């Protein structure tokens, strides 16, 4: 059976049919609006609070997508930039009572500046050295947050009691108006998605991808690689910084613990989202964030609270390793390859004179275990 599928799928030369705009892409795109219905659908405020977390993660992961997936630079300082945005916001709130709408650009720019400061020395290196140098900068910034007690309160961290400032009549107090706060966060998650898509469509995004695919070649056609990497890093930092504002309002606390968002190891969680979701798709981080946040909830709901935090992490860690090894294009890539395989195998099998049930079974099997690779839509 398995060999039959292998033989069939390996003989596929043309991908048939492509992801059709009307029958596949649009219905799937409609799924993007499901989060708008979250507040009436989610039964408890704990779940709604998780949905806020998911929306924040989407913004952070979208930022990492720009530098990691588009530009191909594995930055391990990403959550540190997130933390930098969160600290900027926390300090501006506690000292200056800054309004929320002013905080967003301030924290975004703060984190973008942090990214540039790290990037200027770090982009003199590439590959592993870049990953490790960003890791060291992340740890150094955590040390600074720990030791510069007069500003950061050291390891105690900063607690923010203020609610986001109201927009006209709409209040965003996360205790009494969690729903409004959810929509505010969600709005920015959508914005980040649109921004990501625009970057991907623009000349800039294509330049980033050119750098990822072949740095030497990109340089030879006149692309300033160093500057574009810095720019990609700054953009990703801006996303993270904006997410930091929502994080502070949602968690009401930020501290520089090694496992807090300010620790470099937390970046692994976002790598996980991108790789599980699909690094070659604009929607990869969204799907990844949804899986990481709600996956354990679903499993716990079905099997009855079997997943503790550490067990969840064990499973996600394995998933990260397995997806890198067997499905480097993530859920999005697997799903589109599976969809294409289904029709291709069905057609070929029918052409070879197999009966309908056998063909359908083969096609279904090959779509679940897509051996052939679908068209790459980075």
């Amino acid at each position: 059976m398995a060999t039959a599928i292998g033989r069939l799928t390996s003989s596929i030369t043309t991908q048939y049919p492509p992801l059709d705009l009307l029958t596949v892409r649009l219905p799937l795109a409609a799924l993007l609006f499901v989060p708008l219905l979250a507040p009436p659908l989610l039964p408890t405020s704990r779940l709604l609070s998780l949905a806020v977390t998911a929306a924040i993660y989407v913004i952070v992961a979208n930022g990492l997508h720009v530098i990691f997936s588009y530009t191909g630079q594995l930055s391990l300082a990403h959550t540190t930039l997130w933390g930098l945005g969160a600290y900027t916001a926390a300090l501006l709130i506690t000292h200056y009572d800054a309004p929320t709408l002013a905080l967003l650009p301030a924290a975004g720019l703060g984190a973008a500046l942090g990214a540039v400061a790290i990037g200027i020395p770090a982009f003199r290196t590439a590959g592993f050295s870049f990953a490790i140098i960003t890791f060291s900068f992340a740890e150094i910034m955590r040390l600074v947050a720990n030791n510069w007690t007069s500003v950061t309160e050291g390891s105690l961290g900063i607690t923010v009691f203020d609610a986001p400032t109201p927009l006209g009549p709409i209040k965003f107090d996360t205790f009494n108006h969690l729903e409004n706060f959810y929509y505010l966060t969600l709005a920015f998650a959508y914005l980040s998605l649109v921004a990501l898509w625009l970057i991907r469509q623009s000349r800039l995004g294509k330049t980033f991808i050119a750098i990822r695919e072949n740095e030497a070649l990109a340089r030879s056609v006149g692309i300033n690689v160093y500057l574009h990497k810095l720019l990609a890093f700054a953009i990703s930092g801006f996303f993270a910084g904006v997410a930091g504002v929502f994080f502070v309002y949602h968690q009401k606390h930020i501290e520089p613990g090694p496992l807090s968002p300010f620790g470099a190891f937390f970046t692994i969680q976002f790598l996980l989202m991108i790789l599980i979701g699909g690094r070659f798709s604009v929607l990869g981080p969204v799907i990844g964030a949804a899986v990481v946040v709600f996956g354990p909830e679903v499993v716990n709901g079905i099997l009855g609270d079997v997943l503790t935090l550490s067990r969840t992490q064990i499973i996600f860690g394995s998933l990260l390793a397995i997806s890198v090894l067997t499905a480097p294009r993530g859920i999005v890539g697997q799903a589109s390859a599976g969809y294409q395989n289904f029709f291709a195998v069905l057609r070929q099998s029918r052409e070879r004179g197999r009966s309908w049930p056998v063909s359908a079974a083969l096609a279904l099997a090959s779509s679940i275990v897509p051996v052939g690779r679908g068209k790459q839509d980075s």
Partner: protein
Amino acid sequence: MPQELTEFLQQLFNAVRISGVYALVALGITVIFGLTGIVKFSIGELLTLGAFLTFSFWDQDRVIFFLAVPLAALAIGALSLLLERVAFRFTLDQPINGFIVSLGLILVLQNFVIEAWGTSPRAIPPVFTRIWDVGGVRMPMHDWFVIWVTVGLIASLFLFLRLTKYGRAIRACAEDREAAALMGIPVGLVIACTFALGGALAATAGGLVGSIQVIHAYIGAQLLLKGFAVALVGGLGNIEGAVVAALLVGMTETFGAGYLATEWRDGYTFALMIMVLLLRPSGLFRARGRLQETLQ
């Protein structure tokens, strides 16, 4: 002896003691990188696991320390071998994927330790309790024991790599995997064994660390960074460089913490590492072999 000299010698002693542990971690990293180009970040978690296994062997069955550490090293070596067989060998042509796999393994192993032993700190009591006092410098006998064990291990690793047939095979694979394969060296086996060796070294470091300081589920993450700094400063893939760099890093942070400010202890190491990476990206001592280009 004058007070300053005593203090200096005490710091030096502490630096040498911790350098040995860093060197063991760094050697595991450096040997694996030199051979495969894979930066194995999860080695820190193998260290944690080794430390906790040593703790369990020692505590539950009263296996003496001299047996508990090799047992833990053996177990982690086997685990490392298994991981190479099921995961890392598929990433040999794309080392960055190996790096990401090792990031996933960090989550798995760290949380496994939390599941199995919890997050509370543990301590393995020292084997030797005597403390020598030489002119005001306090030198616990157990620390000397740890120092000599690490020196012995590093020396035997050198001799193994330089003098034996197997060591020559490892070095040949590091120079040129294809040519080594043409010479009839079972490259896959050599790589698998090197992963086992790296894991066993990390586990030994873990057991030794457990006997000189408190261990907890996150200790591997901390020591990994130090081991990494050492491997990078020494030039990834360069074994002699790692030993010299271990002393350099150990002294930088010990003297920095002793004479400048304690709270920036880890910062000195990172600053040193960043400076070396920027000024001499291939490390203070140039690494050998074609794998160097993957770093640039």
